[in-house]
């Protein structure tokens, strides 16, 4: 009943709001399986300006989970006030934060945990869990200081045993999963900052610190049950971007629990609408490294975009291809078809849970 009421409110807001409204459906068809999933959704994002310096940002999403129907959701995605001064902005409320410069996994997105019910690398913004928090952005010339305080930590949501992309090892899948930790406002808060400096030579450099709960819980077997345990950790990060002769160099590095994760890359836009990029990925937590390559071409005469991504292990079996085609029709409808293709005999890579789990995804959305 509560969900229906929220859905009705969301539809009403959608009818009268003037911001971004999106109606869409994400459909997945899986290889070597009869399983499919379809997620129709409605999303709106609205900005309401009260005073020249004070605005409310609100966004919500309603989605159905077909055929399971277990995760039909109406979620507030954002709800915060933004106060702008000459040299500062203050944002308070339900928010999503993205730090870091590189593409793909976003290792520096430390503030918001994720919901991994769906494909783990699918639409990373969709899977972010918003948090109630306060953020100050203080402009001091080329220096920007951004402290963030999250009132109550939110937990990472893991797939269940019957999810297609569950990443709990096969031998533990049958165990009941238990999470006994409860977070309370202020007692279980998280906090940190980003310090950003734009150097005269166009080097954009940021230092990051965040004191938070572990986003990768430990799975512990006790009394025949599988417990998730989150521990308090500190993360330190450096992120940079540098533009040299139309080549954009990017890098993210984060250290958590004495282990480093890093992604460094370079990309270039060519005059004829080609975008080519490559990245190096390192994760000392699992002691593995990867490379990735992506290319994108926007056609000129028709609004068609072709893209191709290849992610491969440098010292392991990981191999993932993603070809993608999208068409932006003039009436506001976007059609997208993509495939995720994995190596079937992956023995030692991070992606071995996706052995024989290729999929084709068809997405359609209408912006109005």
């Amino acid at each position, binding site marked *: 009943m509560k969900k229906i009421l929220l859905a009705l409110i969301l539809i009403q807001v959608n009818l009268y709001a003037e911001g971004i409204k999106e109606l869409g459906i994400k459909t997945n068809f899986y290889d070597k399986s009869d399983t499919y999933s379809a997620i129709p959704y409605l999303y709106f*994002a609205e900005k309401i300006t009260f005073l020249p310096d004070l605005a409310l940002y609100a966004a919500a999403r309603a989605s159905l989970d077909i055929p399971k129907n277990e995760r039909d959701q109406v979620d507030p995605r954002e709800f915060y006030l933004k106060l702008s001064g000459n040299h500062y902005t203050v944002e308070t409320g339900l928010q999503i934060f*993205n730090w870091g410069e590189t593409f793909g996994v976003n290792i520096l997105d430390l503030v918001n945990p994720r919901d991994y019910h769906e494909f783990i690398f699918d639409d990373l913004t969709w899977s972010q869990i918003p948090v109630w928090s306060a953020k100050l952005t203080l402009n001091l010339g080329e220096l920007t200081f951004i402290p963030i305080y999250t009132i109550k930590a939110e937990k990472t949501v893991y797939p269940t045993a019957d999810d297609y992309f569950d990443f709990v090892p096969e031998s533990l899948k049958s165990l009941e999963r238990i999470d006994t930790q409860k977070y309370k406002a202020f007692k279980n808060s998280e906090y940190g900052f980003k310090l950003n400096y734009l150097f005269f030579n166009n080097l*954009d450099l940021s230092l990051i610190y965040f004191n938070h709960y572990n986003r990768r819980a430990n799975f512990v077997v006790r009394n025949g049950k599988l417990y998730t345990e989150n521990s308090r950790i500190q993360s330190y990060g450096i992120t940079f971007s540098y533009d040299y002769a139309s080549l954009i160099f990017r890098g993210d590095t984060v250290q958590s629990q004495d282990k480093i994760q890093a992604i460094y890359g370079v990309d270039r836009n060519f005059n004829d609408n080609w975008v080519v990029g490559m990245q190096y990925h390192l994760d000392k937590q699992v002691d593995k490294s990867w490379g990735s390559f992506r290319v994108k071409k926007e056609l000129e005469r028709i609004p068609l975009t072709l893209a191709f991504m290849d992610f491969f292990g440098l010292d392991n079996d990981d191999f993932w291809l993603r070809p993608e085609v999208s068409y932006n029709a003039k009436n506001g409808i976007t059609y997208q078809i993509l495939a995720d293709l994995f190596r079937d005999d992956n023995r030692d890579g991070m992606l071995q849970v996706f052995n024989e789990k290729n999929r084709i995804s068809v997405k359609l959305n209408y912006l109005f």
Partner: protein
Amino acid sequence: MKKILFLLCYLNLAWANFSADEILKRADEIRNPSESFFMQVEVVSNSDTSLFDVYLQGKDKTLIKTVLPKRDLGRNMLMLEDSMWIYIPNLKREVRVSLNQKLSGQTANGDIARLRWVGDYTPTIESEDRESWMLNLNANRKGLTYDKLKLVIAKKNFWPKSGTYLTVSGKPLKLVQFTEYKEMAGATRPSKLIIEDALKTGDLSTLTIKTMRVESFKESLFNKNSLQ
């Protein structure tokens, strides 16, 4: 008496020996007010029509907010000195990009974000006739929207008339016409730029300045961390 003074001024202007730097400075002043200003720009290309709100503060800060098409709403762009970022709404993050990246049709990010030439380019006079100067502009550093430009500037009033944008090797990329001069932000300025692919005749974008007004803005508007 007024007519004689006007004639003297006109003759002085026509016969004065201007340096390439002076000509470029005067042409820059025609294109944009020196103070901070706002303009709304429409870009019409073969496949699309886009509308942008553009906020320019001083000589090196530009914020571009996409108004149309609807699917690009919130795709805001910020330029500080030679650095540029685009906020991608569905990723909820700002992404560093280069100035020569396509904005819409034949228009590059830098065509809107960077209106001034002085400081970015070193000009030389290639040739001149009774009506105009032909200037060669060479980029002072890497990473600008274009490496080389050829500009035709009217001697009568320093109005930029047309231009050719070239690669570093001198290969023509785009042909530009500055047209429809009218009163905007306290001076007569070109309100329409026609940008055509130099190799594909007819593949063009029209950039129209719908409104332009002098206005100053908060410093916090020009921060990549507040682009949403």
